[in-house]
C-alpha cells in the first residue's frame, strides 16, 4: 500500500512519460493508474459540485459530483473495453493488448490530473459569482482543455505501438469514436454535475434516463423544421 504515498510521484511520471529503457523503477501498475483516475476525478468532481455552495444540503451535491466524475470515466472505459479487446485480437494485436490498456489508462489518468490542476480555476470563477449557464460553459472549457491536452499523452504512449504495427493507429481511432460515443451518453445520464441552485440537490436528475443523441436529434429536427416544441 505504498501507492497512496506515491500518487503524486506517479502523477508526475504519467505527465512526463516513462522512459522506455529504464528498468530500474517498476512501471506503474494498472490498478495504480486507475487509482490515479479515481483520486483526481474525485478532486475535480468535488470542485465542480461546489457551484451551489457547500452549506447545508448543498454539501451533498459536492459529494455526488465527486463520486460521479471518476465513475463516468471508469465506467465508460469498462463498457468500451470488451469490444476493443475482441477487435484487437481479431486484427492480430492481442499480444500488445496489455500495453494498449496501459496507454489508454495513462491517458485517462493524465486527463484527470490535468482536470484536477484546473480545479482552482473553476473555483476561482465560481467565486466571481458567475451564473449557472456560464458555469456550465466554464466546465465545458475545462473538460475540452484537458481532453485536448491528454491527446499529447495518448500520442506519446501509442507512438511505439504504432511504430511496431501501423494497424494500431486505426484501432485507436475506433477506440476514440466508441469511447466518446459511450462517454457522451454516460455524462448525460449522470447529470447533474453542477447542480442548478434553483433546483433541489439530487443524485440523478428527474427524467435524466433519456438518450443524449435523441435530444440532439430532436433539437436539430426542431430547428430545421422551424417547430418550437415547448
Amino acid at each position, binding site marked *: 500500500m505504498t501507492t497512496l504515498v506515491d500518487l503524486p510521484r506517479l502523477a508526475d511520471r504519467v505527465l512526463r512519460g516513462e522512459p522506455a529503457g529504464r528498468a530500474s523503477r517498476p512501471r506503474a501498475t494498472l490498478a495504480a493508474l486507475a487509482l490515479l483516475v479515481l483520486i483526481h476525478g474525485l478532486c475535480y468532481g468535488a470542485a465542480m459540485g461546489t457551484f451551489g455552495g457547500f452549506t447545508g444540503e448543498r454539501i451533498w451535491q459536492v459529494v455526488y459530483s465527486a463520486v460521479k466524475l471518476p465513475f463516468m470515466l471508469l465506467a465508460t472505459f*469498462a*463498457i*468500451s473495453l*470488451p*469490444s476493443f*479487446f*475482441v*477487435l484487437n*485480437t*481479431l*486484427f*492480430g*494485436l*492481442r*499480444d500488445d493488448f*496489455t500495453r494498449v490498456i496501459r496507454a489508454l489508462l495513462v491517458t485517462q489518468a493524465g486527463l484527470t490530473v490535468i482536470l484536477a490542476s484546473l480545479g482552482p480555476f473553476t473555483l476561482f470563477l465560481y467565486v466571481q459569482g458567475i451564473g449557472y449557464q456560464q458555469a456550465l460553459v466554464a466546465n465545458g472549457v475545462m473538460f475540452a482543455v484537458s481532453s485536448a491536452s491528454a491527446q499529447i499523452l495518448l500520442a506519446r504512449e501509442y507512438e511505439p505501438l504504432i511504430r511496431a504495427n501501423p*494497424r494500431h493507429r486505426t484501432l485507436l481511432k475506433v477506440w476514440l469514436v*466508441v469511447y466518446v460515443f*459511450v462517454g457522451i*451518453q*454516460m455524462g*448525460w*445520464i449522470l447529470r447533474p454535475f453542477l447542480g442548478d441552485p434553483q433546483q433541489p440537490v439530487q443524485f440523478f436528475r428527474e427524467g435524466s*434516463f*433519456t*438518450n443524449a*443523441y*435523441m435530444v440532439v*436529434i430532436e433539437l436539430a*429536427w426542431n430547428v430545421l423544421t422551424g417547430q418550437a416544441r415547448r
Partner: protein
Amino acid sequence: MATDKARGGKGSGWFSDLDRLLRGELTRTQSLRAGGLALDPLRLALVIVALAASYGLCMGAFAAFRADGPNLIQIVASMVKVPLLFFLTLIVTLPSLYVFNALVGSRLAAGALVRLLVAALAVMTAVLASLGPITAFFSVSTTSYPFMLLFNVAIFAVAGILGLSFLLQTLHRLSLSAGPTDEPAPLAAESEFVDQGALEPVGERGPSPHVRLVFRIWVVVFALVGAQMGWVLRPFVGNPKTPFAWFRVRESNFFQAVFQTLRSLFS
C-alpha cells in the same frame, strides 16, 4: 510467452477454440495446410449459443426498464431468439452454398465448409457479445424505442461485416493452403506473416474467380436473409407501447421497417 499465458487465463477448453480463432492461430496458412480448420464444430456451436444469448440479454435489457414495469419474459425471448437467428440463417443459406460451391469446382468438402461457416459465425457472435456491454448500457439509459432498434441494427451490422470478412479471408487462405505446394513463392511470403491477424490479407493468389464469386454472392445473401430472419423473429427489443408477444404478425420487411424507424426517429 504471452500467448500461453492468455490461453491459460481462459481456463476451460470451451473458449480456447474461439480464442485461437480470433487470434488467427487456426487460420494461419501453415496450420490450414496441415489439416484444414482444426476445430470442433459442435463445441464451437455451443459457444456461439452462449455468446449470442449473452447479447440477447443485453438487447432485452431495454424491456426490463419499461415505464410500466419490467417485462422479463422479453429478456428470455431475446436470449432464445438471437442464437436462433444465426443458426436459422445458416440453415437457410448453407445448402445452396454447398451446391453452388461444388458446382463451380471448389476444393472445399462439405465438412470443411461447415467448419468454415461455424468459425465465421463464432467470430460474428464474439464481436456481437463484446459489444453487449455498450448495448446494455444504452438499453438501460434510453427510453427511445426507435433509437434502440437502429442502434441494434448497427451493432449487428458491425458484427456481420467483421464475421463475413473473416469468412472471405479464411476462404482465401484455405484455397491458398490447398493449392499446389511445388510453388515456393507463397511459402516464402508466409514467414513474414507468422503473427498475422485473422483478418490480415495474405498473398495475391486466391480461390478461383468462380468460387470467389459464389462466396461473395453468398455473403450478400447471408446478410439479406439474416436481416429478414431478424424481422421474422422480432420482437427482440420489445416496443414499450405494445404488450409482449413471442412473435409479431408477419408484415412488411426488414428494410422498410428500418426506413420507417429512421423516419420515426425524426418525428
